[in-house]
């Protein structure tokens, strides 16, 4: 058992933290990035690609850096700590995982160079107006026409779709809307005829879009894996997504907790620092406990996300999401409360952490959703 990073992992951590410190020196700098046309700085994205972040999870023979879940955790923690808005999650985690686990060698040869260099960005389109968090609830249709597939349907809240070159879309070739079989994952160019992207900002400073597919034709070589049994792949992508969100949340919560403790030491009322009040000290300690428990679960997520046992993996990642979601809400609310008025303002970075943490709860499954999954599977401890 070993909880330390390797030398290479420490190097990665240092370089990503340095990138973030340079790219995000202040809240003003971060807010300026969110106002750029794509919602982030393309130059920064290029620097991330140079650091190897875009090609991180791909094997060295594929031209990547051979990083695993721990490397992703390191990157996402830094992203969260600095509230970075580059589409590392949408492209480098969700999209890249779909390609890494689903693409054949021809497809990899086609997409990987652009992905690893950062010239091609990806995103994942899986949410529909009725699906909530069920990955298998897919109304978007796919049909075969000769050697092609034609897609029709509508996806919601697709992260960074307006800056993506390729969209990985779940669509149904057969079966009923909620069947687990019959779903395929298709890689669709964002500029393909029939694709409409209506982009908007998200509550936490990011970007997303409603994406419509109207008679969108793609080749047979656009399918990842089995065209009618794509759900297991989509599930794995979402599991990697949960592990990454846990790490991002951890970074954001660490920053927010540090800000809060710092504030308690500086802010004076009644002639003393407010941190001298036991009522506030104990709340700051409860925040720390929630943070450390979330850190443990982020580590657990990184360890379990590549487990070969699908049932064990599903229960573990759901457990991770429950614990991290609860910590996001608790830490975020407590931080705003302990800051008082300043915590309510747009000009204070803590408020932006609060918002990001609040939104993480509703990505890839909220607390009741994942708690029910753990409970219905009989829990984590065998009786």
């Amino acid at each position: 058992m070993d909880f330390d990073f390797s030398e290479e992992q420490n190097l990665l951590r240092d370089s990503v933290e340095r990138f973030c410190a340079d790219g995000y020196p202040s809240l003003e700098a971060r807010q300026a990035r969110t106002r750029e046309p794509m919602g982030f700085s393309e130059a920064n994205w290029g620097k991330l690609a140079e650091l190897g972040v875009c090609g991180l999870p791909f094997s060295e023979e594929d031209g990547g850096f051979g990083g695993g879940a721990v490397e992703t955790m390191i990157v996402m923690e830094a992203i969260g700590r600095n509230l970075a808005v580059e589409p590392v999650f949408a492209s480098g985690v969700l999209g890249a995982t779909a390609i890494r686990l689903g693409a054949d060698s021809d497809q990899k040869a086609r997409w990987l160079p652009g992905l690893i260099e950062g010239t091609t960005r990806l995103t994942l389109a899986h949410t529909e107006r009725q699906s909530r968090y069920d990955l298998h609830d897919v109304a978007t249709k796919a049909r075969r026409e000769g050697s092609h597939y034609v897609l029709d349907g509508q996806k919601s809240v697709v992260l960074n779709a307006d800056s993506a070159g390729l969209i990985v879309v779940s669509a149904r070739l057969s079966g009923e809307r909620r069947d687990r079989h019959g779903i395929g994952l298709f890689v669709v160019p964002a500029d393909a005829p029939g694709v409409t992207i209506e982009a908007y900002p998200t509550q936490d400073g990011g970007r997303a879009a409603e994406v419509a597919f109207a008679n969108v034709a793609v080749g047979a070589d656009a399918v990842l894996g089995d065209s009618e049994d794509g759900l297991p792949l989509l599930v794995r992508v979402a599991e990697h997504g949960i592990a990454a969100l846990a790490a991002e949340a951890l970074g954001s919560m660490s920053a927010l907790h540090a800000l809060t403790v710092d504030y308690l030491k500086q802010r004076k009322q009644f002639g003393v620092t407010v941190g001298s009040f036991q009522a506030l000290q104990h709340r700051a300690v409860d925040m720390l406990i929630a943070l450390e428990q979330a850190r443990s679960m982020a580590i657990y997520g990184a360890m379990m996300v590549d487990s070969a046992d699908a049932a064990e993996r599903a229960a573990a990642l759901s457990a991770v999401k429950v614990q991290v979601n609860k910590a996001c809400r608790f830490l975020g609310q407590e931080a705003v409360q302990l800051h008082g008025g300043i915590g309510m303002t747009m000009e204070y970075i803590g408020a932006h952490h609060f918002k990001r943490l609040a939104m993480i709860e509703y990505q890839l499954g909220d607390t009741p959703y994942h708690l029910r999954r753990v409970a219905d599977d009989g829990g984590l401890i065998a009786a």
Partner: protein
Amino acid sequence: MDLRFTAEEIAFRDEVRSFCREKIPAEIRRKVSEGRGLGKDDVVTAQRILNARGWAVPHWPKEWGGQDWTPIQRYIYTEELLQAAVPLPQQFNCYMFGPVLATFGNQAQRERFLARAANLDDWWCQGFSEPGAGSDLASLKTKAVRDGDHYVVDGQKTWTTLGQHADWIFCLVRTDMEAKKQRGISFLVMDMTTPGITVRPIITLEGRHEVNEVFFDSVRVPVENLVGEENKGWDYAKFLLANERTGIARIGLTKERIQRIKRLAREMPSGAGSMWDDGDFRGRVAEVEIELKALEITQMRVAAKQGRADSVQPDPASSLLKIRGSQLQQAATELLVELAGPFSLAAPARGGGGNNPPGGFDWVDAAAPSYFNNRKVSIYGGSNEIQHNVIAKGILGL
């Protein structure tokens, strides 16, 4: 980074696991699992079996019967005992008095007491808390006045756990009335049969005799019973309390309770099926399990850190383990009462009742007492509020 145990650690775990299940009598483990009180004989029997294997005091120095285990091995050992519902070695002997004596006692004292403590030939109890000294332990008033080659002890201790079984007591006593609070305290041991010592039971809310008051009325104690230096007792007490916090999260105990709840829930009728068919109940169990999984990893992180030469100080994270660990122990007992539901009211063990257990369930009468009794775990060993203070000061710098 790797969460998995090594092959050696797995082999060790399996060895402890099968030893617990094969060698410790099932009847004793059943009592532990059901939260029924253990008799003195049960504790002695279990500890002697462990001691014969060299496993009663593995964390002691090797020359006094300890094992050269890594912190991970110690963690595995404790968790396996708890999960197998084996009573842990008597805590006052093994986790408190023994380590203090091995570290601060003189050679004659070590030879006289340690082996007997490990084998539970002597039963030790703790005389720290007083009616006016709880969380503020250093305000204790029991005094020991030197008279030739004896101390004369007067005062009162309280919350003395299982003092009714004890052969010996280790006490914090005030030996310098002038010095500042912490400075004038000494660590003194006494034979419980010494004239002037009186033990009075305190019956705790669940109806059991677990704790006592101990009165000292001109008790004459030979000076050779002083451990370490006079007036240095507070240092030894701090050392002891740090020891007490190790493993205080009791992850394995809560795991065992959850397993049992899951089994019993399948047999407890509710609606058209069982309590286990109730999704809300399963959700509440799952919530505890998830928090417990997080704490298990937190505990492993602490243990892995302890294993490194560069961190010899007690990790303040152990306060975190104490807080969350006690909350989860309590949460599990709450779930059990909830599961017992209407039957939790019945208390045939307190007298009356025929041969039929309430509703035909032979475990329900112990559910509420276990819940009642477990309120103590967030109070003893430094209350959770004190642990909050420790973290606020030691980690957050507030």
